[in-house]
Every structure is written in structure tokens, then in C-alpha cells.
């Protein structure tokens, strides 16, 4: 061989260097194309991101079908099966009655004194209702399903069966009639007619995805609220309807803004209610306003009690998850922040912005829920929120003890032979104290939705409970029991 392999005769690099260079350039070409494709994807997403591959209508209850058109929303919606605790709540079904046994006494004689588990995510709303001892051990009406199942379709069908004429223009009449039919049914029977927890159809119009409210309890309640004089600066369309002369009925689906509807669809269910009359119609007590004392005044006027306390004989009220009412008192509502802004914040997936349908505590998603507006660190935001909740929890405990003191005093007086006339004032105080305590306890934000209002309500609860203890002493001439801790 003429070409010697001696170093001085060599020109150029060893073969392997050329081979490696070749391979490296090949990889670089590949990576450049991958990068290019990534950019193409983003641009495509920016152009069109919804593909209606199936038709959905008012009759499509199953969210899986809607999920074919809206996979991103459906994916996050399914996540509501997740179980996670926060400091004061979350989505794990721990038994409140074990964690705070005082509630067994406060709810003595009522279903809640038997089973009061923390609620889980939306995915479980129907299942948990069917399983709770409040339903398995007590006779409940079909009214319960208005909020715990996807009932829009059921109401429409029952309404049509009951003779309401078909057609879009009779949509609400069909729902209201079906609602009347179902509320009356025994729960066990009505539950056979539903299959799904809250579904896409319960908030969205099938044709154009607009938000739309349909629950009769809410429609009737919001109209009663609009008719009243309760100021609603956080619901400007009601103010507008009033200013324009209160013509006809307030129609949330046409009168409310999109931002208001982002709260109203939640207010279809996250509200205080009672079952009115023999028909057990789910009714929201908003005729006098949304504040705790206004709802109490309404209940007093219609003469409604939820049950008679087993230990004291007082006629008392049960509060159920008054999130909408409490939120309405807070600064976030006043500033135009809707339920969805915090509980279903927008999330960016690639080049698309969708609402996060994993409805849960914002404490589990601080960056997306809070930082859009509150531009400080997540740690600071969380600490601030927890501060509010911790203070609220402390006041709650204090109020529980005060109420217990009153219950003990009445029980002792009864044992000593006090008459109903003597105990009337004390029992009235118990009703007032218990209503306020329960209003805050049953509300799921642990004070966050309206911290100052929650504290005010609990302060009144404590005051009424102690006034009740004093009333027992005054009216039965008994010495005041040693102050309860």
C-alpha cells in the first residue's frame, strides 16, 4: 500500500470522526424537524380547536358523548373523582360526627345527627346521596335529586308526560311541571329514573355551549330575589332589570351577563333551600334577601322549622351549603369574581385556553385560581387564605361550645321541671344561635367566601347562645350553670 498510515503522511481526520459528524448532523436534522412540528401544532391549535364529531342535544345526558366534542373539558371533569384533603375540607368523606362529636348533640333528632360525612367531588354526588344513611334510614322525597343528579331531561320528560305541550317555547313550563311531579315521588322511586351526577347538559346549552340555568329552585328563587329590594351590586343585571321598571319576570338566561352566569350555574345547587309544602318543592328562601337574618325572617314568616330538637324541644332550622349566599356578602363577589373564576380557572393547554372542569378547592390550584389577579407568591396566597380559615374554625369551635352550653342549660332546666312558657325565650335563642352556627358550618369555604360576614354571623351565634343561657337562668330562676369552656 502506498498511502502510509504513518502520522506525517496522513491528511484529513480519522474515519470515525466523519462518521460521527454524519450521525450528529442526521440527529440535528431530525431534532430540527421535531421542533418545527411542535410549532406547526401550536399554530394549528390557534386556528381551530373544537371539532364537533358528534351531535349533542338537550336529550344527551351522558357526559361521555359530550366528551367526544370537548375532550379537554371532559378530561378535567372526570378528575372530580380525586380525593384530597385540605386543612379544613377537601373531597374526602370523613365523618364529621366522629371528628366533632358535638354535632351529634346539635343535630339530635334529625337525620344529620346520624350521618354527616364530608362531601366528595361532583362525580360522587348521586352515589353518595344514595348511600348516605340520611337517605337509607329516612324517607326522603324525589326533591333531593334536583341538585344531586342530572335531572333536566327527567323534568322535561315528566313535564311532557303530564301534558305540557312540546316545543322550545314551552321549555321552562315542561321543566317546572316535571319538577313538581318528581319532587313528590318517594326518593327510591325517583332515583331509578336518573343515572348521572351533574353533567354537561346541566350548565350548557347543547346547541351553542352557552351557559344556561334550568333548575326550577334557582329560577324561582332568583326571580323572588330580583322582586325584592335586596341590593345586588354583585349581580348588575338584576339591578338593571329593577331600574328598567321590573317588567315581566327576571329571566336569568337572557338578562344575565356571561360573567354572572358563571356564578349562577353553580347557584343552581350550592344554596340554602327547604322543601315547601306537601309537594316538597325545592324552594330557595330568598324573598327577603340573601343574608342569614333575612332568610331567617322568611322562615319565621312562613312558619318553617326543619325539626324539633330531641333534647330541648326547640324548633330549629338546618342550613344546607349556602355558598352562593355567603359568597354574595364577600369582596370577591363585589369585585365581579365569579365561582368559575376560582373553582374552574382557565388553563392553557398548548395554544388553547379552556376552563378547568375539575371543580375543587382553589387551595389545591393556587397558581391558576389566585395568581391571575393576586400577583404574589403561592406561599403567601395560601398562608393568607389559611389564616382566614383558621380564624373561622376557631370561632366555629367557640360557637359550638356556646350552643352546647345553651342546650345543656335547657336540658337541665327541663329535668328540673321547667315549663314550656319558661323555656320559650331560651328555645328561641337556640333557634337563632343554631341557625347562625349551622349557616357558617354548612358553608364550604370555612369563612373564605366572606370572612368578615362569617365572623359576624358566628359572633351573633355566640351571643344568642349565651343570651339563651342567661334566659334559662332568668326565666326559671335557676342559677346560671358554671360557664362552659
Amino acid at each position, binding site marked *: 500500500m502506498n*498511502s502510509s498510515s504513518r502520522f506525517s503522511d*496522513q*491528511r*484529513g*481526520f*480519522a*474515519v470515525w470522526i*466523519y462518521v460521527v*459528524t*454524519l450521525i450528529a*448532523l*442526521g440527529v*440535528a*436534522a431530525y431534532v*430540527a*424537524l421535531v*421542533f*418545527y412540528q*411542535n*410549532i*406547526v401544532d*401550536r399554530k394549528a391549535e*390557534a386556528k381551530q380547536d373544537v371539532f364537533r364529531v358528534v351531535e349533542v342535544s338537550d336529550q344527551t345526558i351522558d357526559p361521555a358523548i359530550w366528551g367526544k366534542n370537548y375532550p379537554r373539558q371532559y378530561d378535567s371533569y372526570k378528575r372530580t373523582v380525586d380525593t384530597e384533603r385540605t386543612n379544613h375540607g377537601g373531597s374526602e368523606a370523613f365523618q364529621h360526627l366522629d371528628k366533632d362529636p358535638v354535632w351529634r348533640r346539635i343535630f339530635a333528632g334529625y337525620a344529620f345527627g346520624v350521618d354527616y360525612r364530608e362531601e366528595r367531588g361532583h362525580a360522587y354526588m348521586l352515589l353518595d346521596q344514595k348511600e348516605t344513611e340520611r337517605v337509607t334510614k329516612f324517607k326522603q322525597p324525589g326533591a333531593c335529586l334536583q341538585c344531586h343528579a342530572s335531572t333536566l331531561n327527567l323534568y322535561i320528560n315528566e313535564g311532557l308526560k303530564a301534558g305540557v305541550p312540546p316545543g322550545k317555547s314551552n321549555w321552562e313550563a315542561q321543566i317546572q311541571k316535571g319538577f313538581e311531579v318528581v319532587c313528590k315521588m318517594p326518593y327510591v322511586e325517583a332515583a331509578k329514573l336518573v343515572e348521572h351526577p351533574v353533567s354537561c347538559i346541566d350548565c350548557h346549552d347543547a346547541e351553542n355551549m352557552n351557559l344556561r340555568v334550568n333548575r326550577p329552585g334557582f329560577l324561582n328563587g332568583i326571580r323572588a330575589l330580583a322582586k325584592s329590594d335586596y341590593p345586588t351590586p354583585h349581580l348588575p343585571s338584576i339591578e338593571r332589570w329593577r331600574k328598567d321598571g321590573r317588567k315581566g319576570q327576571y329571566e336569568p338566561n337572557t338578562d344575565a351577563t356571561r360573567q354572572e352566569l358563571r356564578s349562577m350555574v353553580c347557584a343552581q345547587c350550592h344554596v340554602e333551600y327547604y322543601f315547601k309544602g306537601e309537594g316538597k318543592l325545592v324552594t330557595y328562601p330568598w324573598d327577603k334577601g340573601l343574608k342569614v337574618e333575612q332568610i331567617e325572617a322568611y322562615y319565621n314568616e312562613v312558619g318553617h322549622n326543619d325539626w324539633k330538637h330531641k333534647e330541648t324541644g326547640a324548633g330549629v332550622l338546618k342550613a344546607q351549603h349556602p355558598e352562593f349566599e355567603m359568597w354574595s356578602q364577600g369582596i370577591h363577589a363585589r369585585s365581579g369574581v365569579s365561582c368559575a373564576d376560582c373553582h374552574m380557572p382557565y*388553563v*392553557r393547554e*398548548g*395554544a388553547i385556553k379552556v376552563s378547568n372542569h375539575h371543580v375543587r378547592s382553589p387551595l389545591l390550584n393556587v*397558581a*391558576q385560581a389566585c*395568581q*391571575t*389577579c393576586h*400577583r404574589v407568591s403561592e406561599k403567601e396566597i395560601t398562608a393568607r387564605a389559611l389564616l382566614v380559615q383558621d380564624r373561622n374554625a376557631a370561632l366555629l369551635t367557640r360557637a359550638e361550645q356556646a350552643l352546647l352550653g345553651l342546650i345543656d342549660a335547657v336540658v337541665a332546666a327541663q329535668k328540673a321541671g321547667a315549663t314550656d312558657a319558661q323555656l320559650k325565650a331560651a328555645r328561641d335563642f337556640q333557634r337563632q344561635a343554631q341557625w347562625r352556627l349551622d349557616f357558617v358550618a354548612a358553608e364550604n369555604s370555612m369563612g373564605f367566601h366572606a370572612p368578615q360576614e362569617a365572623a359576624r354571623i358566628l359572633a351573633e351565634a355566640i351571643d344568642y347562645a349565651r343570651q339563651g343561657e342567661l334566659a334559662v337562668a332568668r326565666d326559671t330562676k335557676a342559677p346560671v350553670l358554671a360557664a362552659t369552656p
Partner: protein
Amino acid sequence: MTLRKHPLLLLAIVALFGVVAGLCTYTFTYAQGFSYFSNDPQACMNCHIMREQFDGWQKSPHHAVASCNDCHTPHSFIPKYLSKAENGFWHSKGFTLQDFHEPIMIRQKNVAVLQQNCVACHEQIVDGINTHPGDPKKMLDCLHCHREVGHGPIR
């Protein structure tokens, strides 16, 4: 061994080099990379994630007197393009790997640039205050109070 004896291998390497250069150039153009050299605020909007800031700026008090670069990049030539290059790299990486914190929040280094530009224009009126412009540790952050003058409330 010399490449002269393997002309095909040399050709392959050179050709591939050209292909890579072409791909990279094409991708750069497709991704509107040249917008990074521009002063036009519309260019910043190529990334739609900046749409709210653009909308807010259009209605903000500084709309008529300052555009994106006037506030967010240094004013002298080399620091300006260095800043664009650095931020451009982070933007590309972030969008490709989707690994950035959201909501988007300005980095401390860029806050220092921003504050320096506040002082650069408003020097006369803040003359009596020790603003320590551009020093991330010492600077008096104008935006702590004047948060909305750039592109509107909150965002």
C-alpha cells in the same frame, strides 16, 4: 485516511449540513423568529399568550409614549439585542417543553431592566429619591405601587 479518498462520504456530510441549515432557517422563519429583531408591538403578539398585555397596553396611560421594547429591553444597542436573544431562547424553550409557570410572571432580571427604564424616562421627577435603578437587590420597585401603568390592571 483522507476524505479525498472518500468523496461520497464528504458529499454526504456537506449535503446533510446544508439540509440541517435549511431546516433550521425554515423553522426560524416559520416561527416568525425575525420578529425578535423588531420594535413593532404587533411582533410581540406573535405569541398569543401576550394578547392580554397587548390589549391592556393599548388602553394604558403609556400607550402613546412607550412600546414594548421601550420598557422591557435596555435602550443601548448591544444590551438590547443580548436581552432579546436571552429572552427569545427562554420563550422558545418554554413553549416547546410547556414547562413554564403560569400565570406568566416577569423574571427578577427583567424587573430590574424595567425599573431602569422607568427611571430613564422619569429621571427628573424621581431625582430626589434613591431609586438604585437596575440593581435587583437595592432598587425601589416603581411597579410595586404603579402596577397598572404599563398594560393595565393586574396583568
